[in-house]
């Protein structure tokens, strides 16, 4: 009896440490993997896809860490950064850059652009304390809508991006035409056991993860975290919380811009118009699955969460298609899982400073 109770206590502690959503998703992921093996699916391709999707989404998920740590909650306004990134890519193509030059130009331009926009966005968040998540969501939506006009009306000339007739940019812009498709993925890429490892992609993600990890050990990073956990404490220690919230959201927005560049080159297309609309939600879901809360997030949450979430999506779709041929169940499942997770995670939001 007492043995049983002790075991139960250990189990509870374990669940609490890892987090219930993380455990459920992990279990589900394993079930899907087993199903894939049983259904005799091509595992090397599946794992290769998983790695690729993990790498291309990682940076967008990483963008959640600074905003959560600063106390403004998950960055639902990720589309703001994404638009900056896309705009930089489009400008790069317009100016005739190709290949690595295009990537580097887009990165450089989006750094400046996203920093500026992030600054304004941070100021907006400081003006709406207490309702950050709602305001962020709608800021994201609005900027997407605004840029739908922009994509149409900004007079880009490049033949590679326009419609066959009329003006404005196409909905998806092929990056193979500018020699940028999978250019980072293929850097130092190799194959083992038939699995294609996108080395460059993973290296970039790893580098940014280390940078963010280090950042939260710097003076500013520690101050940002403290302000997020307990604003009163930080204030009493003479910290300028508003400034720190802006810094954190600038970083988050820049990561969003870099994230979409990494994503687009891996995907092979730059998706304009409505595509960025719902990109924040999978990223939020991933970091929450990784064990973050709306008030606390670590780089490890990003890695674990992205791996689980994207892993589950990439494997469950072919498995579901095989099991329920001819249906669109996998897409429905993806929606259910993704939104269910966000819903669950947001109901679990705890104030930063509980005893």
């Amino acid at each position, binding site marked *: 009896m007492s043995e049983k109770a002790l075991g139960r206590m250990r189990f509870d502690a374990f669940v609490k440490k890892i987090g219930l959503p993380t455990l459920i998703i992990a279990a589900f992921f394993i079930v899907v993997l087993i199903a894939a093996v049983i259904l005799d699916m091509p595992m090397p391709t599946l794992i290769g896809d998983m790695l690729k999707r993990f790498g291309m989404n990682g940076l967008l998920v990483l963008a959640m860490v600074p905003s959560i740590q600063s106390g403004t909650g998950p960055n639902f306004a990720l589309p703001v950064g994404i638009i900056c990134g896309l705009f930089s890519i489009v400008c790069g193509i317009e100016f005739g850059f190709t290949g690595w030059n295009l990537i580097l130009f887009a990165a450089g331009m989006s750094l400046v652009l996203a920093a500026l926009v992030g600054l304004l966005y941070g100021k907006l968040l400081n003006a709406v304390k207490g309702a950050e998540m709602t305001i962020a969501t709608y800021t994201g939506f609005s900027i997407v809508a605004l840029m739908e006009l922009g994509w149409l009306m900004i007079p880009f000339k490049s033949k590679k991006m326009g419609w066959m007739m009329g003006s404005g940019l196409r909905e998806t812009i092929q990056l193979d035409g500018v020699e940028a498709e999978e250019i980072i993925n293929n850097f130092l890429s190799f194959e083992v056991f038939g699995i294609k490892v996108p080395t460059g992609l993973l290296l970039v993600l790893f580098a940014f993860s280390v940078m963010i990890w*280090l950042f939260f*050990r710097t*003076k500013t990073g520690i101050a940002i975290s*403290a302000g997020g956990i307990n604003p*009163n*404490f930080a204030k009493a220690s*003479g*910290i300028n919380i508003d400034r720190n919230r802006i810094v954190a959201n600038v970083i988050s927005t820049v990561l969003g811009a870099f994230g979409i560049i990494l994503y687009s080159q891996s995907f092979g297309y730059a998706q304009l118009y409505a595509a960025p609309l719902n990109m924040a939600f999978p990223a939020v879901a991933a970091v929450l699955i990784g064990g973050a809360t709306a008030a606390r997030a670590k780089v490890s949450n990003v890695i674990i969460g992205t791996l689980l979430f994207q892993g589950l999506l990439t494997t469950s779709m072919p498995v579901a298609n095989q099991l329920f041929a001819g249906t669109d169940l996998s897409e429905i499942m993806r929606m259910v899982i993704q939104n269910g997770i966000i819903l669950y995670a947001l109901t679990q939001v705890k104030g930063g400073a*509980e005893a």
Partner: protein
Amino acid sequence: MSNSLLSIKNVSKDFYGNQVLKDINMEIRRGEIHALVGENGAGKSTLMNILFGMPVIHTTGGFQGSVEIEGQEVNIMTPHQAMGYGIGMVHQEFMLIPGFTITENIKINREITTPNIASRIFGKQYENLDFVKMNRDARAALDKMDMGIEEYTLVAGLPVGHMQFIEIAREIDKTGIKLLVFDEPTAVLTESETENLLRAVKKLAALGIGIIFISHRLNEIMQIADRITILRDGELVVTKDVKDTNTLEIAQLMVGRKISFERKTSSGRRKNDETILSLKNFFVKMPGEEVKGIDLEIKKGEIIGIGGLAGQGKLGIANGIMGIYPAAGEVIFDGQKLELNNAKGAIEAGLGFVSEDRKGIGLLLDSSIEMNIAFTSMQIKNEFLHKLLFARIQNSGKIRSHAKKMIKDLDIRCTSPTQRAGSLSGGNQQKVCVARALTQNPKLLLVSEPTRGIDVGAKKLVLDLMHKLNEEQGMTIVMTSSELAELRSICDKIVIICDGKVEGVLPPDAPDQEFGLMMSGSRKNSGNSAGFDGGLAAIGTKEKQDKEVMSDV
């Protein structure tokens, strides 16, 4: 006794082993005004909570002893039951709906209704309100207190004094009201409003209602109460007829003699005449603890106590100096004018602060002990950092070794420097707060409520720590505390704050009654109060002592 309305018999209560009431016996008679006095934390609120069956009592294991109403033992489990037994309460904060009329406020949830078609189908909730009858009842209740105001007036915009009366009217309108508790009813009233209220209370008592009157204002009690019960540290000190006592005696009994003077060994200290901190016309807007114009001088090397009752503004002083709540006035620290409303500036100037709100402001509960200790110094003084390219990264080694030293020096009981601060006991959390303040190498340490919420043994340790810091390092300490005994045990002099102003400065060994009088603010009002000759004489001597103290330091 047929005249007895309420008897409280052998009531004891502890919160998780912390005894807050010990064997209380009290009796309220019909038509009696019974005053209940005591310092903050003496047990008045707990006693009233028991009487009203508040959940806080029953979720913490109930209480021992019994409560009898008119000779019948009753078991009050909820405030609603208390109402049923005819016990009412007039709250210190008004619980009125501003957009409703007086009648509606008086009758809320007890409306008089008449049936209509809809209510016959859908139930009683849909009956019409009978405003004629309701207004008549409200009028009667208001008349009982000689309130001329129309019952159909909106509550919004009424003067505070009137709101208090509406609260009372609501209670007496309840049928079968037998006992009415007034919890510091005059705290927010002006002088003339107070007069009206006291007259109304007397009138209610004359109607045969028993009154429990909780107040810090001893003059009022002398004026209207029949008997008085004094609580101190959860014990009933005495119940007396008011005519057999005086404010001086009450004040003395409230504060009591329970102090051991440890300050005698203070001769070797580096106390000197140099002023390190002076406040001039200092105001702080801290909700509930407002400071309304204070002048204060603090000498280098002394321990100053700031005392007073809760809500009088003593806590606002340190919070204002540290820039946590908006402040105005002039603060000169260490020869420099201190910029107000600038927390960073205050820390940079060399002020250390241990907040009274340990869990809210004092600690990052989810962070490690070492981070809590190092945080402020790292942020303000750029300590515990090393350079990596263009960034400044935390120097974990240095943080660890410093935390270990502090843990050893202050005897913080923990498993390791990486333990979560939130998992420590209250006393050890307090030491972490002190450790952080000391890490800043402050020239002056402001410590607020250092022993709040920690057990007796830990209290002693924290006080000894203050004493040691002062004695060995010559640290100037400004200690704010609600516990007078604590201040008297280690301070050189004690400033009593009342109503946001300095009521007076006393040496720690001043007689109890002087502390009691000053804290209750009865000293300056006492002149126009009857039966208070002894008090006046005492004030004369007190002021003389004040001067001596001033010239002393």
